[in-house]
Every structure is written in C-alpha cells, then in structure tokens.
C-alpha cells in the first residue's frame, strides 16, 4: 500500500468537506439560527482543515495508484467524512449522542435515508439542509467530485478511484479523460437536480419553499430519502408526490444514458438493455401491488399514485414514503418491495442495491447454465447490452452476489444477537435496507426508517453496512485484508 499518496488524497477530501460545510453554514446564517449552530459548523471546518492540510502536506513522487490504493482511498475517505460530518449534529446538540449523529450522517452520505431522529421537526434548518446535502454529495460520489477538479494526472490511475466509488459491475468513462468525464457527470447531475428544484418550487404546496424544495431535490437526486417532515412525503400534494416519484426513477437510471441523449444518440440510450429490464420490473411491480392495494384507497388514482410512488422510492433506493406501506399494505405488496430492495437501481446511477445489470447478468447466465444441463453440447454466449459477456464479468458478478448475501446473513445474525428483543423482520429488512441504501424497512423500523431504538453499537454496525453497500463491498473489504497493506 502506498500510504503517502493515500494520505495526500484523503487530505484533499477532508479539505473539500470543510468547503462544502460552508453551505449549511450559510443556511444557518440566513435563518438566524442560534450561535451554537454556526459554531458547530465552524469548529468542524476548522478541524477538517487542520487534519486535511496536515495530510495533504505528505507528498509522494510516485503518484501512480493501483487498484488497492483506489479502494483504500475511497473506503477511508468515506469513513472519515462520516466521522467528521457527524460533528456539527452533536456539537449543536441537535443529536446529542455522537453515535446517533454518525448513523445519521452516514445514512446521509450513503444516500440511505434511515434516521435515528424521532422528531424531525425539532431539527434546525441548517441541520436538515446538511443531512440532505450529504445525500446529494454522496449520490454521485465525493471522490468523483474531487477528480473533476484536482489537476489531472496523466496516467489512468484515477480510474481505480472512479471504479471504487461508482456503482455497477462495469465502469466506463464517457470521454477519454477521467476529469472531463467526472465533470460531465456532475453537470448532468446538477442540471437535473435544478430542474426538479424548480418544479417543486412552483408546486401547489404552500409549505414547500426554497429550502424545502432544495432539501427534497437533494434527497431525490442522491436517491437518499431524508425529508423535511417526520411523515416523509405523505402530507404533500399529489403534484409533489408525482414529481418526486418521477425524479426518483430518473435519478436511478444510468447517467451514461443522459450523456448519450445530450450528444444526440437517442437511439442508443433507448436501446439500453438495463433500462428495459428496469422499466419492465417497475411496470410488473406496479401491476402486482396495485392489484392488491387498490381497495385500500378511496380512488383508483390515489391507489395508483401511492403504488407508483412507493415502488419508485424503493427500487431507486430513495426511501421516501407517501403512505405508511409497512403497516397498512398486504403481505404480497411487502414481499414485492423487499425483492425490489434487493435488486435496487441501474448501474452508474446514484441508487444502491445489487443493481439491475447484475441481476440481469445473473439471471441470463443461470438460464444458460440450465439450458446446458439439458443439452450439454449446446454452445451459447450470453450477451448483455449487445456485448458478449466475458466469463470474468459473470464470475465477478456471481462473486459479488455471494458476498452480498453473506454480508446480509452475517449482519442479520450479529444485529439479532445484539438486539434480542427485536423481531426478525425488523432486523433482516433493516440490514437489507441499509446495505441497499434504501432507508425504510418493515416491522419496528417502519415506513419512515426509524432506527432509534437500536443500541449504539448496533448503530455503528448499521453505519458500516451502509458504507459497505454504497461502495459495493470491495473497498471496505480491502481495509480488512492484511495482504492489501503489505509493503510489497
């Protein structure tokens, strides 16, 4: 492990975090919040700058990164930004328990949206903003942001960082330079967020003003799920609910497709196999759930709206709730939602979960294997997105799936061991919700993603699971592999 480069880049990340804390600070000043809030941001920024510059001083001649450095840099950065990002919440006494604060902000950066705050309305404006803003930053990736703006390195080693932070089995660049690529992504991301912000602002809801629509847009954009109210989205108008539902789907689609649309390759974007799988899954889920919940609501429109909203919210791994689905919906609807939590959104989006492309690859490959069992001499290639699937891709996808399942299993065991009172449904769906970065779950946790009843230690474990899920396991695993840290 080349520690010097690692420290240097981690230092840059901390400085960046200090810079982005200016935004909540600004909110705090605009809303004339008590001094302690402003102070909490200033103290955190000071600490970040001290540590950041101290690490950034370390320079190394050899700046070429290998895969392991890329993984380690991303994993360590994410852990550190969560640890530091929690400070304002604790210092301002909004969330006095530091473990709670860590859970909350990790849930923010990993775009999970699970919360330990029972009374959200008690949070100050700046803290609400900071939670949602962390969604926005974490959605596209903090390091991608850094890569878009630090001076470009000539070799391709930045690819390793992008790969470690981006979602999906195969990570490609849009254009030949990493830097330009990350910039394009951020510009697309910013633009769509801005459109959503405007649409929410002009909506009929009186209590959605500039700050509220900013928070909701950030939450949707990162597919996070932190809202302004304890009741999530359920009290808003149907207009707002539709806007959010549609934008949740938009943000959970591979951003490469938007780039194709921008450069005029409409057809290629629409031909995307992953997109088709995604839309088919959404449509069939709507049919199943709608058929089971239509009698719960007074009008068909309302039933459709909640069904669509909830499916879009879960599959995009956002985790907004327009209705208390966890307690009122029938089992079949809940089952579909749990399955959607597993599969998650498209690769290359801001969403979490296993990713549609992985699910598609696994299913296609398994079907081929079944065919082969019946007719052993049959030769057939698996194609995905018009390309022949390489065995290594299939293998690494299977590998990912197995480790994903193993982590869910062992985390559920561990959480159940630590919380003997809680029922299995809460523990299992809680873990699933965290690793897929969804937020809400079933049982005690419920539609609004309330994890407050778990012990401090469990919250730390949930936080680690969230980061593991967001970074797609391997970066975090790297930290625990002694081999990766050896000098040679």
């Amino acid at each position, binding site marked *: 492990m080349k520690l010097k480069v690692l420290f240097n880049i981690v230092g840059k990340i901390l400085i960046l975090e200090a810079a982005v804390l200016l935004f909540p600070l600004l909110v705090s000043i605009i809303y004339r919040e008590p001094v302690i809030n402003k102070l909490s941001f200033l103290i955190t920024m000071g600490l970040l700058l001290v540590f950041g510059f101290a690490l950034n001083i370390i320079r190394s001649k050899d700046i070429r990164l290998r895969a392991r450095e890329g993984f380690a840099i991303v994993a360590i950065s994410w852990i550190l930004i969560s640890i530091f990002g929690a400070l304002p919440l604790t210092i301002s006494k909004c969330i006095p328990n530091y473990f709670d604060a860590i859970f909350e902000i990790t849930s923010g950066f990993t775009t999970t949206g699970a919360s330990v705050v029972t009374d959200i309305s008690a949070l100050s404006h700046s803290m609400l903003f900071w939670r949602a803003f962390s969604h926005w930053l974490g959605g596209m990736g903090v390091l991608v942001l850094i890569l878009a703006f630090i001076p470009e390195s*000539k*070799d*391709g080693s930045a*690819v390793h960082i992008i790969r470690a932070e981006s979602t999906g089995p195969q990570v490609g660049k849009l*254009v*030949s330079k990493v*830097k330009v690529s990350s910039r394009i992504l951020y510009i697309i991301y910013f633009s769509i967020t801005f459109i959503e912000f405007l649409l929410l602002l002009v909506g009929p809801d009186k209590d959605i003003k500039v700050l509220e629509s900013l928070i909701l847009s950030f939450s949707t954009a990162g597919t996070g799920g932190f809202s302004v109210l304890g009741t999530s989205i359920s009290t808003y108008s149907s207009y707002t609910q539709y806007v959010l539902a549609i934008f949740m789907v938009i943000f959970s689609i591979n951003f490469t497709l938007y780039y194709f649309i921008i450069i005029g390759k409409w057809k290629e974007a629409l031909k995307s196999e992953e997109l088709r799988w995604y839309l088919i899954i959404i449509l069939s889920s709507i049919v199943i759930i709608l058929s089971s919940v239509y009698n719960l609501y007074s009008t068909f429109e309302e039933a459709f709206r909640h069904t669509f909203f909830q499916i879009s919210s879960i599959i995009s791994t956002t985790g907004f709730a327009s209705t208390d689905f966890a307690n009122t919906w029938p089992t079949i609807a809940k089952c579909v939602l749990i399955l959607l939590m597993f599969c998650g959104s498209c690769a290359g989006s801001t969403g979490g979960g296993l990713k549609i492309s992985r699910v598609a690859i696994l299913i296609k490959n398994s079907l081929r294997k079944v065919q082969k069992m019946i007719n052993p001499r049959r030769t057939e290639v698996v194609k995905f997105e018009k390309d022949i699937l390489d065995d290594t891709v299939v293998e690494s996808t299977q590998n990912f799936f197995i480790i994903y399942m193993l982590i869910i299993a062992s985390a559920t065991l561990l959480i159940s061991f630590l919380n003997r009172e809680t029922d299995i449904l809460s523990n299992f769906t809680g873990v699933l919700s965290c690793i897929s970065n969804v937020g809400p779950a079933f049982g005690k946790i419920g539609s609004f993603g309330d994890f407050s009843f778990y012990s401090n230690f469990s919250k730390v474990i949930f936080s680690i699971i969230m980061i593991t899920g967001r970074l797609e396991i391997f970066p975090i695993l790297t930290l625990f592999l002694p081999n990766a840290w050896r000098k040679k």
Partner: protein
Amino acid sequence: MKIAIIGTGKVGRAITSYIVNEGHDLCIIDNNPKVVESLVYKYDIIGICGNGATYDIQKKAEVDKSDLVIICTSSDEVNILAALVAKRMGAKNTIIRIRNQDYYQQVNSMKKDIGVSMIINPEQEAANEIVQMIDFPQALKIENFAKGRINLVEIYIGDNSPLVNESLQNIRQKYQFQVLVCAVQRGNDVFIPKGDFVIEAKDKIHITASRNEIVKFLSKLGIIETKLKSVMIIGGGNISAYLGQRLLKNHYRVKIIEKDEKRCLELSELMPTATIICGDGTDNELLLDEGIESTDVVISLIGIDEENIISSMYANSLGVPKVISKINRENFTRILEENGIASIISPKIISALRVLSYVRALANSRGSNVVTLYKLVNNEVEALEFAVNENAKCLDIPLKDLKLKKGVLIAAIIRNNETKIPEASDCIKVNDSVIVVTNNGFLDNLDDILA
C-alpha cells in the same frame, strides 16, 4: 487534439505512452481485450476492443472527428484497409505502419489515394540508425538533425579523458571546437549545462555539432577512430535484411547468423555477397567458430531481449570494439548502457518518436513547427528541431537578450545549409532550423522556449 490509435502492439503501446503524456484525448482500438484493459487502467484513455479496420469500430472510436489516426497493427494489409476506411470517414491525418518493403514503395507512391500523411517502418528505421552507429562507433548513441547536417552524439567520458575536471568554457577556449555540450548525465541526474559546468569522469555527455567537427573533437580527445570493416549480425529478421543490404552497399563484410534454414535461404537470395550462417546465435561455440573475436561489430537482433543481452555481453567480454543490441523493453536498456556493454537500438521507440514529432507539429498549427524530436537520457531530456517561420517571437534578437526558460538551451542554428553553434550575438532568423535541448516540460512551438 483527438487522436485514435489502431493496433496496440509494441509500437502502438510506445506511441500511446508518449502521446498520453502530452495531454491529448486518446482512443485506442485493439482486438485483444486483455491489452485494451491493461492500457485503459494504465493511462487516462478510452479503449475499444474490436477490429480497427471496420467502419463500425472506427465510428465508435469517433475516427471521423479525430485529428489524427495512427494505424499500427501487425499486418500491413489490415493497416492499409484501416487507412482506407479512416479516409472514407474523413479522418484528417493518418499515420500508417508498413513493414513489407514492397508495400512500402507502393503505399508511398499512393499516399494521396489511401489518405496517408506519414508512413512508419520501424524495422527500416532501426536499420538506418544502426548504420549510423557503425559509421560513428565512438558514440554510444547518435541522432540526426536537419537531414544529417548536424548530429547529436552521446559520449562516455572515461577516467583518462582530457576533459575531466575542465569547465565547458575552458574546453571551448582550449580546443576552439565548434561543438556544444547540451546535456550531461551524471548517475541518475541530468544537467543542461552552462559555461561554468565542470565535467567529471564517468559522465555521459551529449554534444551537438556538424559531423566533421565531431570527428575532429573525438580525435583530439584521443578517442581514435578505427574504420570498422566486418560486421556480424545475430538473428535474421526484417531489420537484418534491411541492415545487411545497406552495409553491403557501404562495403562492409557482413555475416548473418540465423536459426531458421528457410529464412537463411531467403536472406542468401536477397544478399548473395553476405555470408549467411544457419545456426543458433546464442551458442557461444558457434560464435567462436564464426570468428566473433575478430569481428569489429556485433549486432544482436534476435526477437527475444534476453538472448540479445546474453549475446551482447558475451561479445563485449571477448573485446569486440562495437556491440549493438536490439532491446524492446526499456528497463533493460539501462543495464546494458550503464555498464558500457552495448549500444541499444529499439525499433518501437524510434517509430514512437517520429510519430510524436508529427503530433507536436500538428498540435501547433500556427507557430514554428517541430521537425524532428529525440528523447535522451531515459526520456528526461528532449532535443527538438524547429523550422522557424515568420510568426516566431524570437526573430532577430541576439541570443544574449532572449529570456529563455530554465533548462532550455539553443544547441544549434542551421541557416542556408550551414551549421552554426550559436554564440551570444547570434540571432534566429526566418527559415532557420533551430535545435533546442530541454529538460523542462515539453515544447511544441519555438515560442515556448521563452520564459
């Protein structure tokens, strides 16, 4: 600039590594997924796996929008086809590799039809370079500027050299040479020396001067020039064929050792006056039998680096005056050069440098263009030849009044076919060729030398 490279074998990879460093947008195409993957991880580029001679793949690589397409797959036919497709697509400039001698002539005469702006033939260029080395055996390395009017020569300073502990100013006054020391390598450090620089033993100095001046300089130094007469070439590949023919024309005695019997017959047909030996060139007894001890030059051109190194070391140990070895992997060259065992020739680097000078000239459309470019001392120093045009900013200003960047040296001015080692009062004029040596970043325009 947007550049596409089709075919990333040895030459393609060398070109890739040079071009990436200049910050161009690069897209590589190769049909081997492993190669594409490894390059994409190594450099900040886009890689496409597929047949580069097809329309679809070239479209995917946006060849139609590229400023330059470099085609260097291993097959000449594929290269020509790819060039035609690229031309049809509207590629602005195309560089193509042709190895087969017959095709070379053909393509050269049809440049316009195929839409090719430059042809590279790594083997032939390597052969040319070897001929120069043999002509100038005292030099570790020799590079040409201005069509050979001026040379850049690398010389090793031995312990007994009269130059040791002399400053460059003194040397100039003492010997009155028209030569310029433009770069000095000492251990792992490189210096672009000024007048007060003192030379030490074991330095490697790079000097520029016209050919005659260098000969005078070397004989004054006591490095006696013996005319080499007999050449032994180990390995009978393409380079050997090119080289053998050139050497025979210059009346050298040529002996080629080749393993493959069929190839031996071909070579003998090609060069009836050469002695073609069928046998293993790494077998020391065979080499002794064939009189390696009394040979003046041993050139090892086997396809495997390791075998070349072994034969070169063996030849060196027998006291052969000049040993030249073909090495493709750059990290190996250090071992041989540092111990003074052999001069190194690397076909892929020669070609990559030619392409690079073309790229620099293309990148700089307004100012004074790069004509030739060499990389010295492990790529840390560059020597460039610029053709000065009327837009240059440094025209008609005495050199002493020019504010040059650090680490930049004007090594020679060529005016009306006359070479001049510049002095403080000289000026650069339109239509001159100027040779600049620098270790400070890369230049694509003569104006870049100004601070």
